[in-house]
């Protein structure tokens, strides 16, 4: 269910499972391989698999080998990496409630959550047949991360209290990590998306030829191209642990991946995965990808297309299911807001910041928004009006108290009541002092709000235009500043930004703290204000502090408490207490509507794809978490 991991229980379960597996292995477990490999010059399948391969229970049934999975992806290969490259140490569960061992066989924490011992799979091989050992990780840590000449920094989660973890190799298949403080969420942080731990096991035998210390190369360009998540997939010939290996890549047009003969997972009947032979992806420019996905979907030319549809396309997709021989599975996006309005409490104009710190100001703005209208017009009625709060699937909301708090939070201050909004503003002195039709600041000077909106997000612009009309109706002058994304980031960095519309996001408790509920990181996506976040992150060295005693400061403190709490139950309680600040003194960030459905187009020939689920943000690694290696074609 949640992020709980009871060490003793886990150890017991793990031992039992291992014993069972060994027993079954001892009863001469036979493995089968794809008929493609018969007759090829390869070692027997049992030798290609690790001693204890990962056993995947299929979603529906044990499958048959063969077939080509077709789909469409933007040319930057965004979510395609989540299909092919998601092989972290531990993967999120299919229902996104917790993590399960993936490339690691298991791990054990000590009681204080300061040391974790990782068990690698013995006998696991890279896609070129070389063995995977702890040396691969040691190469990554010692020769890439710790080596100052190589531009790889400490990955997220590996630095606690400003100190990086220490890594100790115990034996060829065991590694111990030690943190300077409790780091109970390390494995979850490492399991995010297709970056993080998916990248930490590098094929050291192959990478050495690009490393300046081991070969003649003079710069790190080739090494970085093979390491970084944005370019790793395209490196043909690089050994990988994924189910499919890239064999053809024509930039901007097509990318093809073939099955990996050394893949280390089997299904419950002993068949080596994956079932599907080939993944054939057509690439398109960002402007063309909308046409490409829609037309190819209704034309029956894609077999699995989980992203890159616009909300407006849903009805076209649904009406053509029969013609295209596919089914649209409606998953949930897990978006808690689309768009949402981030407030920059580090804006240079202190008069504006004063208003932001007054709860009634933001409450008035929130009550003035007609969320039903936004829902009808921008989201075609498919979303839910709600306040800015985490996704309901977040683990800490899975108890009755959590549930109740979530309901309260997501429904706070969302009633459409312009009269109430007006009276709240009157109460704090924001009235039309000079009679020119707009409300002014309490000191009488002109009040003009400016919100930065990414020019590329038409939905955000449309929603903000409706909100602008709503706010004009209560006398607030709002200017929409549509800019290119990085221009907005630049303004956020130097305090010029006042408010910002962010298209969509989903989030999980502590993993998404910075974006959602506490200013603890100094990045452009941090809520509350980039400088305020940086102040916390650098321990007061850079940035500016939140106003003493303010809700922002208390949220930072609450985060510090929660991140160090080892016991999951206590941690959830700490999180709920922090969220209470948002309910009582917020809204600190404004939400509009959220929880849109997300269509996943699945060919009627494709099996083992879940009917419902959460596509979520990139953090969670969907569609990798749907276990595409067990998809199969029933022909």
């Amino acid at each position, binding site marked *: 269910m949640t992020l709980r991991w009871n060490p003793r229980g886990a150890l017991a379960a793990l031992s039992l499972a291992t014993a069972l597996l060994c027993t079954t292995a001892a009863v001469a477990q036979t493995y089968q391989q794809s008929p493609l490999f018969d007759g090829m010059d390869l070692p027997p399948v049992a030798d290609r698999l690790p001693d204890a391969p990962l056993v995947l229970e299929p979603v529906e049934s044990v499958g048959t080998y063969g077939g080509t999975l077709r789909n469409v992806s933007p040319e930057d290969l965004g979510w395609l990496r989540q299909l092919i490259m998601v092989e972290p140490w531990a993967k999120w569960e299919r229902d996104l409630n917790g993590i399960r061992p993936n490339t690691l066989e298991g791990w054990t924490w000590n009681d204080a959550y300061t040391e974790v011992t990782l068990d690698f799979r013995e006998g696991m091989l890279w896609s070129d047949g070389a063995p995977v050992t702890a040396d691969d990780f040691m190469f990554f840590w010692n020769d890439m991360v710790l080596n100052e000449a190589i531009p790889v920094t400490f990955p997220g989660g590996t630095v606690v209290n400003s100190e990086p973890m220490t890594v100790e190799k115990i034996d060829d298949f065991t590694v111990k990590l030690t943190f300077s403080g409790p780091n109970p969420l390390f494995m979850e942080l490492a399991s995010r998306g297709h970056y993080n731990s998916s990248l930490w096991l590098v094929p050291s035998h192959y990478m050495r030829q690009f490393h300046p210390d081991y070969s003649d190369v003079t710069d790190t360009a080739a090494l970085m191209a093979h390491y970084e998540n944005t370019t790793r997939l395209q490196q043909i010939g690089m050994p990988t642990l994924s189910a499919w290996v890239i064999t053809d890549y024509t930039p901007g047009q097509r990318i093809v991946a073939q099955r990996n003969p050394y893949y280390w997972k089997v299904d419950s009947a002993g068949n080596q995965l994956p079932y599907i032979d080939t993944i054939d992806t057509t690439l398109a420019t960002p402007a063309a990808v909308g046409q490409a996905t*829609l037309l190819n979907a209704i034309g029956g030319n894609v077999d699995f297309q989980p992203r890159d549809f616009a909300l407006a396309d849903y*009805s*076209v997709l649904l009406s053509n299911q029969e013609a295209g021989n596919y089914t649209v599975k409606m998953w949930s996006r897990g978006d808690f807001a689309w768009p949402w309005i981030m407030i920059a409490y580090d804006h240079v104009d202190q008069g504006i910041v004063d208003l932001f710190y007054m709860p009634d100001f933001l409450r008035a703005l929130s009550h003035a928004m007609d969320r039903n209208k936004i829902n009808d017009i*921008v989201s075609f009625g498919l979303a839910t009006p709600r306040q800015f709060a985490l996704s309901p699937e977040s683990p800490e909301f899975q108890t009755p108290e959590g549930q109740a708090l979530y309901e309260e939070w997501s429904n706070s201050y969302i009633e459409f009541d312009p009269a109430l909004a007006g009276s709240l503003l009157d109460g704090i002195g924001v009235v039309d002092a000079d009679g020119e039709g707009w409300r002014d600041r309490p000191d009488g000077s002109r009040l003009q709000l400016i919100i930065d909106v990414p020019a590329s997000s038409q939905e955000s*612009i449309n929603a903000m235009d409706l909100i602008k009309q709503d706010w004009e109706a209560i006398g607030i002058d709002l200017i929409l500043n549509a800019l290119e994304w990085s221009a907005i980031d630049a303004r956020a960095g130097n305090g010029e930004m006042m408010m910002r519309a962010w298209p969509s996001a989903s989030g999980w408790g502590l993993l998404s703290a910075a974006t959602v509920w506490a200013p603890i990181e100094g990045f452009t996506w941090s809520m509350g204000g980039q400088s305020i976040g940086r102040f916390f992150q650098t321990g007061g060295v850079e940035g500016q502090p939140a106003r003493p005693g303010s809700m922002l400061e208390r949220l930072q403190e609450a985060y510090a408490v929660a991140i160090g709490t080892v016991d999951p139950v206590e941690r959830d309680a700490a999180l709920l207490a922090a969220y209470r600040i948002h309910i009582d003194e917020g809204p600190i960030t404004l939400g509009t509507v959220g929880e849109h459905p997300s269509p996943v187009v699945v060919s009627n020939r494709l099996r083992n794809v879940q009917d419902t689920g959460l596509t979520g943000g990139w953090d969670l690694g969907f569609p990798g978490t749907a276990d595409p290696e067990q998809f199969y074609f029933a022909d």
Partner: protein
Amino acid sequence: MTDAAIPAEDPATPRLAVLSVRQLTWRKFRRNRLAYLGLCVLCVMYLMAAFAPFLAPYGVRETHSQFARTAPNWLHFIDENGSFHAVPFVYGLRQGMDPETFLQSTIRVEDEKYPLRLLPRGEPYLLFGLIPAERRLFGVDAPGKIFLFGTDTRGRDLFTRILYGAQVSLTVGLFGVILSLVLGVGIGLATGYYGGWFDSITQRVIEMTQAFPQIPLWLALAALIPPTWSSIQVYFGISIVLSILTWGALARQVRAMVLSLKTSDFVRAARYSNASTGRIMLRHLLPSTFSHVLVIATLAIPAMILGETALSFLGLGIKAPMTSWGLLLNEAQSVQVIVETPWLLIPVVFVVLTIISFNFVGDGLRDAADPFAR
């Protein structure tokens, strides 16, 4: 050209009318039916734009959130039973969403009929931006809706948006073209006539403006424009920049014509009679290039409208709450629109009509002004 000679007074011959060149030209123009038709259409378009708030049944930002993506809801004279109504009416509408396909569909409710009302009161507006007014030409009583061209994906009446869009597209584009014309013709004449190093330098400058990296320039401008500028100010700025970048092509063509005319007899004659350079250029060379320049001008106006569409596509042009035809075309640019809400392509008809009209008028003017025209 001199005025028509006045014949000597002779009681036997009837007195002939005296017409100036301009009047002669106008007469010739009127005889050209297509050109005249084009002129009428343009007048209608500009009147439409000027009186847009009066003619539009709804405000430009008014969203009918219950009726997004609605097909046109016409006026009828004959109802479902076959009986005739003197006053035309619209049917009531009910919005439904098909639960299977999420397709929003609008159902005509035959029991509800809303007759057309003339000069009803509506949302207050400023006619010509100055005169406050409340009444519009036509409308229906609430909750009836008169969507002559349907609504778009945000529930805004398309007919209204086309009218307001005309205001922007028909005026601001013209401004840029005129500026471009002045620059292009003036510099083209000068460089063609003088030649030499002046010509060389100007040609290189033109090459530079043509090879200019436009898209990075737009991106840079977009980042630098202060957010407090209104959309109109931004568009004026854009059209000025656009015309600075495009006068080169026209200048080169004018230059080509001047180069060939420079050595012709009438120019030489003018020079030998000590005509000043200015006079030569204005009174002799310019009229010869005039017809071609006119044709280019009439073809440049669609280029401006479409240039605005391209900018909208890149996210750099007119933005909400302003409307323009380019923006409307841009919103129609999607497979989903073509398949499900094709009425959103109606602005294309207006754009093409306007362009045809400009072209016919240009043709007619050229024919009328050309002393050799058949």
